[in-house]
């Protein structure tokens, strides 16, 4: 089928039976006319005016009981309201879906600073993700530079009963619509703490943009907005404790909680058993009938006796009944060491089953060179230094470029931008080592799956 051709045939002018019951009737026309004239002249003059308009006047007399509500467009009337919505302009399939399902909340809160008007137009929050949509309008005669997301400094403080901030990651994505109009979406996700208690449905959001483009704000781009999660998003929310426990390769895996919302489904696990095995534990996932595998992400915290692990993935559909988790072991392990830079070298510290040694540090005008070597680390994965970083006292981190000193040796040089030798700094090093899975995996546990219900 030639779709383009079919669509070109699909024209208003040529339409036949379709939408035939949908006519712009005289009654509708009269109703609009009545309302328009009433708005202008007031009710008392209505009859007189209606008589003067041929055709319409007759219809007015014929249509009785036409009722209307002049405020029926919802809460966003008025000429000062931003005429476009950031979520609409941003054009993202995921956000479009939320808009389509009525899960976003409209706002029309404009703040102007130095001629730049920023309007909060939409907020989406589902218990896990929060998207805040802004429309930025620049003056017509704008001579400044383009607005780019790198120069958008959000300072978002989401407070629950005035004291809790639960969002960790913040990112702003920006879309230029034209020279004077931009749409920005600030993206937040609850991350890290492994304890995600359900939040209230209503709370306050404090927002501030401190820098937009090259314009430093003077504190006027600031909002304090009440937020209530729409019913459509609330319908996705579920928290329950399934009674699921499984044993696998000397580990006991207990499912503590399932937390579900429109964007994310999380399963919280407590795992007990040998620490070296817990650290290598990973999961694949598939749907209940095991036909469709999909990606999951994990967040984990280990102590000496147990590990807390959150496994999470994008919520696929509201009615999904169960998930099959398939545990497996990573075939490589990672270990890290933190070496403080001092005046005396070499400095040696244990790393994996060997050690890391800094032999020399050179503070040059244009760069800093850290010469180090790895000693007696067995199964070291070649070219698999996961990271090396220089961490300054005040918290800044510099990524190092690794230059092997000698191809056949375990000696390396990491090159960083120049730093002040008087500043206290440390050198962080992570390496990957190959794990012999045949020594830790039991054959009988090879294809183990754990079925987790996703509804109470």
């Amino acid at each position, binding site marked *: 089928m030639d779709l383009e051709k079919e669509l070109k045939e699909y024209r208003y002018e040529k339409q036949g039976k379709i939408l035939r019951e949908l006519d*712009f009737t005289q009654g509708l026309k009269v109703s609009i006319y009545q309302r328009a004239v009433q708005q202008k002249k007031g009710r008392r003059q209505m009859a007189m005016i209606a008589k003067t308009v041929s055709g319409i006047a007759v219809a007015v007399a014929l249509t009785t009981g036409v009722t209307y509500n002049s405020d029926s467009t919802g809460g966003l009337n008025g000429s000062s309201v931003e005429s476009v919505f950031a979520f609409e302009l941003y054009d993202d*399939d995921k956000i479009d879906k939320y808009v389509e399902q009525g899960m976003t909340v409209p706002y029309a809160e404009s703040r102007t600073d130095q001629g730049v008007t920023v309007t909060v137009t939409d907020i989406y929050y589902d218990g896990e993700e929060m998207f805040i949509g802004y429309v930025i309008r620049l003056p017509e005669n704008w001579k400044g530079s383009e607005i780019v997301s790198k120069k958008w400094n959000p300072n978002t403080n989401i407070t629950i009963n005035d004291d809790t901030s639960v969002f960790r990651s913040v990112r702003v994505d920006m879309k230029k619509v034209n020279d004077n109009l931009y749409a920005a979406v600030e993206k937040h996700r609850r991350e890290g703490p492994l304890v995600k208690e359900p939040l209230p449905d209503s709370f306050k959001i404090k927002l501030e943009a401190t820098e937009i483009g090259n314009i430093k704000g003077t504190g006027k781009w600031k909002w304090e907005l009440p937020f209530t999660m729409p019913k459509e998003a609330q319908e996705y929310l579920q928290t329950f404790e399934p009674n699921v426990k499984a044993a696998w390769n000397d580990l006991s895996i207990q499912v503590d909680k399932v937390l579900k919302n429109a964007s994310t489904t999380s399963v919280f696990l407590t795992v007990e058993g040998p620490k070296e095995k817990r650290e290598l534990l990973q999961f694949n996932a598939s749907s209940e009938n095991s036909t469709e595998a999909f990606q999951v992400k994990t967040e984990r915290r280990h102590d000496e006796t147990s590990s807390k692990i959150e496994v999470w993935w994008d919520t696929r559909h509201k009615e999904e009944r169960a998930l099959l988790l398939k545990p497996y072991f990573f075939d490589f392990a990672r270990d890290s060491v933190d070496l403080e830079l001092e005046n005396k070298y070499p400095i040696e510290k244990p790393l994996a089953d060997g050690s890391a040694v800094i032999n020399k540090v050179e503070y040059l005008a244009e760069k800093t060179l850290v010469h180090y070597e790895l000693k007696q680390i067995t199964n070291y994965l070649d070219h698999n230094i996961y990271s090396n970083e220089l961490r300054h006292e005040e918290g800044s981190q510099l990524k190092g470029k690794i230059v092997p000193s000698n191809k056949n040796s375990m000696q390396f040089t990491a090159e960083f931008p120049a730093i002040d030798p008087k500043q206290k700094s440390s050198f962080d090093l992570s390496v990957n080592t190959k794990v012999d899975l045949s020594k830790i995996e039991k054959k009988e546990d090879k294809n183990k799956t754990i079925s987790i219900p996703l509804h109470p």
Partner: protein
Amino acid sequence: MELHKTNEAKLEWLMDEYGRRMLHLIFFLVKNKEVAEDLTQEVFLKAYRSLDSFRNESTHKTWLYRIAINEVKKYQRSWNYRKIFASIKIIELSDQHRQDSVEPQVINEMDKEEMTRIIMKLPLNYRQVIILHYYQELSVEEIAGILETSQGAIHNKLYRARNKLRALLDREEVVWTLRRN
């Protein structure tokens, strides 16, 4: 001496010229007859209120479309919005109906019913550009103006909308060509 139309006369002219088009556009976007009628009223009332500030007659059409699109957006962001399926009965294609429909003109109408049903399944963003561009026959430039975006973005959206429509058609196994042959 040139006689100037009153705003009421202009409103009447706008309704005669674009009333049905607006109603159809809004129906396609909100999928509900009563809501479409309410929003169409709001569009013309808003236009009426702004007539004094409107100067360029040649863009009446795109101006109205822009008001309509914004009214739909407001509605869909309002607390009253619920996902409501089409209340207008789109004629079912019974076997009997198919057998009876032998004239080319009738077959064309059946195609459009089927197409309407499938287009209604598109996400709003895609449905919007398909209706504006094909059904309402607006140019990409006009749509870009109405939606306040670039022509490139509209081309891109139309491309994605057609792909999605094609996928829906495949899934529904709609085979017009077979019926035509």
